[in-house]
């Protein structure tokens, strides 16, 4: 079960080298994204598109907001 985190925990994880993935469409990612994030839109999540991520290391996903 994925853990829901808030900004403080996110910053800790990023400082420890966590991988950060924005799952919004590419247009929104190009407009603005968190520094160091990479973009894999939700509709494109697959074994192939996540092939560049380390499966044994923490990964954090985010979209626009909780709504």
């Amino acid at each position, binding site marked *: 079960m994925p853990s*829901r985190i808030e900004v403080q925990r996110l910053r800790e*994880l990023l400082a420890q080298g966590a991988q950060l993935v924005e799952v919004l469409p590419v247009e929104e990612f190009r407009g603005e994204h968190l520094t160091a994030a990479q973009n894999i839109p939700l509709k494109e999540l697959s074994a192939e598109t*996540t092939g560049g991520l380390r*499966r044994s290391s923490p990964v954090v996903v985010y979209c626009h*907001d909780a709504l």
Partner: protein
Amino acid sequence: MSPRAACRLETLGFEEVYDYVEGKADWVARGLPTEGDREGERRIGQLARRDVATCALDERVGDVRSRVEASPYGFALVVAGDDIVLGRLRRAALEGDPDVRAEAAMEPGPSTVRFDLSPAELAERLDRRDLRTAVVTTPDGTLAGLMRREDL
């Protein structure tokens, strides 16, 4: 959207998956670093004024009145918990029976705007509805402050 993405990553074999549920809106409004075409653009969450009077549900209207008079506005916001905005006490209510509780006198569910709007976006919204102020909240309804049209 992100909960589904987090779940999908787990099904793909990722061992340690986290979901930053408040997302980009939260990050941006905190003024944390971003990249992209809108990088550096200011948001109303960073600009909102913190000088609006607030009160609890069970406070007497008469006790709230002095705080409103000391503020630049003619109203108070009724909040609960961690400053979740539940209502607004307008001038007419504040000038009424001083013994009435805020909960009974408030206008429930006042309109709010999200704190990651740009100043230009908010100005357009206010002008369209001929409003002079906007209550700014986080995505979970927590009061971030107030924006005045004249400050945009």
